[in-house]
């Protein structure tokens, strides 16, 4: 691996993060990207704060996370984000059943608009609000199993399991690449392999991607 600092990485994975309005999508994302990334960042972040470099099996991977927050009511708009996603984080709010009930329609979109190897991760957010729980863990777990999703309950507030959700997804995608299920050279795979030191070549992103801090 190249050792030219934190901006070198060998893969880029594209994630999308979807779910009903108010389930805490961007909070999850914020929690994940802010936690370690640029710790001395002051109090504001720009509108695009969705990348972080992680390490899986010794390889540095840049996660590029596309959030649809604020646009949920424009389903067609959010659909345009799906293309070429390697991972999809589907979020609902454990204290609001309706957000759980809508999962099937989000899932349909995801399955229709991404490639078959896209890793879908189901997150029940707001697990810190146990008192107002409206969706039981085991029923969501069952839903996840039936639909072949990885599932975890998390809290964007406390940070519990947030890291895990993003990392597990990356591991699964990485595994798919190693198993040959995903071709890192295909645009549609949502994954791109970066030759050592070379610039990223995919249209979706470029090596000029800046850290997500406007400051």
């Amino acid at each position: 691996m190249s050792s030219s600092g934190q901006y070198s990485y060998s893969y880029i994975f594209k994630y999308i993060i979807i779910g009903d309005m108010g389930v805490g999508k961007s909070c999850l994302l914020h929690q994940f990207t802010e936690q370690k990334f640029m710790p001395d960042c002051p109090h504001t972040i720009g509108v695009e704060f969705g990348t972080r470099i992680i390490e899986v099996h010794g390889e540095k991977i840049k996660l590029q996370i596309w959030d649809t927050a604020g646009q949920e009511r424009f389903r067609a708009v959010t659909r345009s984000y799906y293309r070429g996603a390697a991972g999809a984080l589907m979020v609902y709010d454990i204290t609001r059943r309706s957000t759980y009930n809508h999962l099937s329609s989000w899932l349909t979109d995801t399955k229709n608009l991404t490639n078959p190897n896209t890793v879908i991760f189901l997150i029940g957010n707001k697990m810190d609000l146990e008192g107002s729980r409206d969706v039981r863990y085991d029923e969501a777990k069952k839903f996840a199993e039936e639909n072949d999703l990885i599932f975890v309950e998390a809290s964007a507030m406390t940070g519990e399991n947030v890291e895990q959700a993003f990392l597990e997804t990356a591991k699964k995608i990485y595994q798919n690449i190693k198993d040959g299920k995903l071709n890192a050279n295909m645009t549609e795979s949502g994954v791109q392999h970066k030759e050592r030191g070379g610039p990223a070549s995919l249209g979706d992103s470029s090596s000029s991607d800046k850290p997500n801090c406007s400051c």
Partner: protein
Amino acid sequence: LNQNDSGSSWYIVLGGSLEVRLITTNTQTTQTNTIEKASVYLKRYASSRDDIFLNQNDSGSSWYIVLGGSLEVRLITTNTQTTQTNTIEKTIITLTYLGVGATFTETLLGDLPRGAHIITKTTCELLRIQYRDFVEIKERNKDVISELQMNTKIKNGFEPTISKSSPSMPTQARRTSTPDCPNPAEPIVESPSVPMARAGWVLRTLLLNDESGTLRDRKTSGGRTIARRCASGSELVDWLMSLAPSLAVSRQITTGMWQALLEEGVIYHVNGEQAFRDKCILYNFWQDKEGSSSQATAQDIAEAEEHLEEALLALARRAPDAILRYILRKQPLDRTSEDLEQIYEELLHLKPLHHLSNSVRRELAGVVMFEAHPRKGEILFHQGDEGKSWYIIIQGSVDVVIYGKGCVTSLYAGEDFGKLALVNNAPRKYSYVFHQGDEGKSWYIIIQGSVDVVIYGKGCVTSLYAGEDFGKLALVNNAPRYKFRGPNRFQQITANLDVFLRRFNEIQYWVITEILLVTSLNKRVQILRKMIKLAAYCKEYRNINALFAVLMGLSNVAVSRLSLTWDKLPSKSKKTYTELEALIDPSKNHRAYRQAVSKLQSPVIPFMPLLLKDLAFTHDGNKTVVDGLVNFEKMHMFAQTLRTLRYCRTRHLVLDPPTPKCESEVKSYVSCLRAMDNQRILTSMSQKLEPRRS
């Protein structure tokens, strides 16, 4: 599938087999032709299960009804003026399909006759709000409603086609009318579903084997009769709780689990009068009610034990809904404040009620009733009946049968938004609300807060734009505001924004619908070309929001997969499209769009969803207060975003558009776009046009 000049056509998509009966009441030649023509199609239809497409000739006097089978029906009328130009006196039938989340009935603002039959299509669960209750609520919120009526110029795009057609009313027996007081002890389905029947069997088997003897023959309260193998509600709850300590469910949920069984007719109150209650009231299983005396064998018991966990899980899953249904079936006066709170919570999640203010919702919580229609083919009300209730479908679907074309169009539009439905075709009392004093068919008016006013139901919303650009929407709302989503207030939206949003989606689906409605390949190429041209015009006039809507329509999979059509597109159009399409690429946070728009002079209509996203991100990603100090940088970012918007409106639009030959027609067409928004249906239409190549 060409459209004739009168421009009105029905396109019916079906799934499943159908029984179609054709009833004719007139023998005029032209009409006979129509019928013959129709019959031809109908035959083909019934046999091949293919599409049916009826051309509407000058007049028609036939009435069709689909009597059986499960079906999906979509209606499309492509010309709003049809009713005017044609002298239709008699009726056309229309069947449509309403899905979960739809509401129908309408006449709540005035007491008007029903505009259509509503027939249950599958097992249905409905919420009903009675007219008198509604009126009361309306009275209490009168100020806002009258303000709305004064300030809003609602033009209804539909023609007055109040059923002159009543002579041809079918002599169809009215089977059921809606009972005013549903009996909460009645099962809501025709027969128990498999999981519930199984769960019931498991519990009964174990109960029979239980040493406590919970289930035994007892005297009923009067002491005169003996109820076989029954148990009291509280005993059953105790028993079930002791059975599943691992599930750790509350007493309330356990009660709900039993209620779930009762709802499906697995257990009964011995006298058939009570819902399941955690009290000293006796219940027995349906097997025992029918006098079965079989004893559980050891094998049965083993099997039951094996399935116990599964059964409990199934019950626990249904319990919350069962409890809610139980509450909803209670008479309003019997509801406790907790009940009301729970209903209120549930109403929050009902899409048709999204725009209601919280106080109205709270009042509704007191009056909504649950009713179930286990059988399909049940007629909820007839066209011409007095409108007494407003319904919200929770589950299942209903067919709507309507006479009169005007109605067809409106039905269609709302229905496609999935929540439609007001199916009324009658003159309104408040006719002064409507442009030109037309007979209106607007449905439901909903109020939010004291300023925000949202017209509910697609028909109305469309009429808001009536030939005007979005800026005039301020008719309804003097103070456009955008409220940030927060855990407590995320349901609150402003009227302008909501209408604007609907318009975005509407244009997009209109593009798709128009393309998919053309069956001839050459014509489809032409219309595709026209749409691309339209997109280019949008860009030229800097209506970027509409540009995006058209482009997203064109990039919808139902359109983009039509490779034959795209292949035949002239290369010039293709090039234009490719250039424009680059704009909607969301990569690098919509860089292409942001760059393009930064070069544009005001006035511009920006791509609104992105502005919302920027606001949402700024809000969610930054703390408002840091160490007790206001985060000024965050405020600055808000201001920056809003400044962009403000810049867009700094200058007036100066346009000198050509005057079209029939301006009013164009205007009314544009103000009331007909579109389907059901992706599944659109995709299947697309596949019929150009089947997938294997």
